[in-house]
């Protein structure tokens, strides 16, 4: 039985294909303006790469902020449930998930069966999200992919006090003009995000083992800073960014089994 999970996020759209409970492949593309097109395109691309004809897919589950625009989906499930399911597939021992995506961040508490017990979302502003990092990468003229390793070389992280992306950007610009090193500024940006995330995790009282998912999990600087602040090791799977899509495909497998 083949299933597809499509996670249409604000910045990127992810697809995962599963066969009889085993992950076959994943794909990530930019979402762009048209969420529905992005969903279609990512599915076509991953199927082409796996040499699978579209009709071989028995069930499609869509998730992410653009989930409702995916008209061809058999079922729509929120990203909260999908991230829980994805983490359950990748590592059944995980009890908490911290997901930092493009436009929101969330903390999810799950039980031993992979069911969501509690969750909290920050969706009020861009601070504490992937978008925050993108804005800062622009201001610092540094490739976002390099943020993680650069920040690990910081001697003393700068203090970025502002909670607002726009104001934080002007703080960063004054730090640049003061001659502060990129390393310290980027490390400071990571600390600022992690402060917000840790406040969120305290609201639901997260339990180890903790897994981090979403595009920002690829930034080793954020992961290390968060580990330090919340005081527990954080697991990051190689599929961190595709975790929601994998969860959607995994839930589709279970739906078919019912």
């Amino acid at each position, binding site marked *: 039985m083949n299933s597809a999970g499509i996670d249409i996020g604000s910045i990127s759209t992810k697809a995962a294909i599963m066969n009889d409970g085993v992950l076959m492949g994943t794909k990530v593309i930019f979402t762009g303006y048209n969420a529905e097109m992005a969903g279609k395109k990512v599915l076509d691309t991953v199927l082409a790469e796996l040499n699978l004809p579209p009709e071989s897919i028995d069930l499609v589950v869509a998730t992410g902020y653009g989930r409702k625009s995916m008209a061809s989906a058999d079922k729509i499930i*929120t990203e909260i449930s999908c991230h829980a399911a994805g983490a359950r597939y990748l590592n059944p021992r995980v009890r908490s998930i911290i997901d930092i995506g493009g436009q929101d961040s969330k903390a999810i508490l799950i039980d031993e069966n992979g069911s969501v017990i509690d969750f909290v979302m920050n969706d009020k502003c861009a601070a504490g999200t992937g978008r925050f990092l993108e804005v800062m990468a622009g201001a610092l003229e540094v490739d976002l992919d390099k943020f993680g390793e650069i920040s690990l070389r910081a001697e003393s992280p700068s203090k970025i006090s502002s909670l607002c992306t726009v104001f934080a950007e002007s703080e960063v610009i004054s730090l640049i003009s003061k001659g502060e090193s990129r390393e310290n500024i980027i490390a400071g940006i990571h600390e600022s995000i992690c402060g917000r995330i840790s406040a969120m995790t305290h609201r639901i009282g997260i339990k180890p083992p903790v897994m981090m998912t979403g595009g920002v999990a690829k930034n080793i600087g954020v992961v290390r800073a968060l580990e330090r602040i919340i005081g527990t090791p954080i697991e990051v799977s190689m599929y961190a960014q595709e975790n929601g899509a994998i969860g959607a495909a995994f839930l589709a497998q279970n739906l078919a089994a019912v």
Partner: protein
Amino acid sequence: MTHMDILEELKRHPYEYARKYKSERGRPIVGYFCSYTPEELIFAADTLPFRLFGTGEHIRLADTHLQAYCCSLVKGALEDAMTGRLDFLDGVVFPHTCDTIQRLSDIWRLNLPLGFHMDVVLPVKLNALSSRRYMIDVLMEFRRNLENAFRKKITDEALLDSLNTYNRIRLLLQKIHDLKYEYPGVIAGEDLHSIMMASMIMDRSELADVLERIAGDLESRKNTSPSPPGERIVLSGGSCNLLDIYGIVEEAGAAVVGDDFCTGSRYYEGLLTIDMNPVEAIAERYLTRNVCPAKHSGLSTRADNIISVVRERKAGGVVFVLLKFCDPHAFDYPSLKGALDQEGIPSTLIEIEDQSSADGRVKTRLEAFIEMLKRKDRKEGELSGAGK
């Protein structure tokens, strides 16, 4: 037009209703803000109590006086007043609730020539020895102020009539909510919202008749109403500007089966005792009714009440609705959530500002919460099935 159509029209155009009412009946209209305004006295003075919600228009003038941390109710009402949309008002009553409403009263007094202006400063602690005496004194003063402002004596007879009308309205609202909460399919959440909004605006005698018909209609079709969606939700918190939360929750796939809103159950619960001094009867109701976070009647009374509503209505969880920047509700939230956690009652929090802010993000949260409750239900079902 059906009775529901009348109320819906009123919800859509409350200010047009007020203007027409005033020109046709020649009765003064008194604006007010919260359920701690003793409406019964306003109605007994032969004036129409008209609750202000703000219309959610763009804020252009109000921000001159208000800071960014004021809620959308206060901003919206001041904007409406400053742009002249509330020019039909003959006066406004500001009950002492939160800081923002108190400051609004001063800003209003200094900047808006809208007639009768009155702060009703009821006690904050309702369980102190002096609360009752204090409450009665404030209410008696309010009665005298109304009499002077509108040059009309409020007789005990008129007041008793008013109390009876309010008892009738509150009993009917209670009945309509009980029917809705027991048979969620009997009336759409959106219609319940129209009923509540109209109840705080419409001529109260006419309202009582309309509610009576609606309650009768619902009673007659309760057994043939469509079966409700699976997850039963209790709403808590505050939406003092009365957003259509019922509609939003139903759209996300759950049924509202209880609430502790001041625009919901706290508006209609508790009847006025008729065989006592009428002013004391109003005080008595305020002293015994469930409190809002701007009042105090014991450390755990609000939590105890929500838990008992959840149990009584067999609800699966609680959705806290906070109007953005409402600090009294925000301060209460962590302890209420803690109390629910201890009882094993799942809850979630949504924060909204106006109807349009109830967008995809709020819906995602509600849908995720409902998915969580469904899964919990299923698991508990399997467990109890396995035990047999």
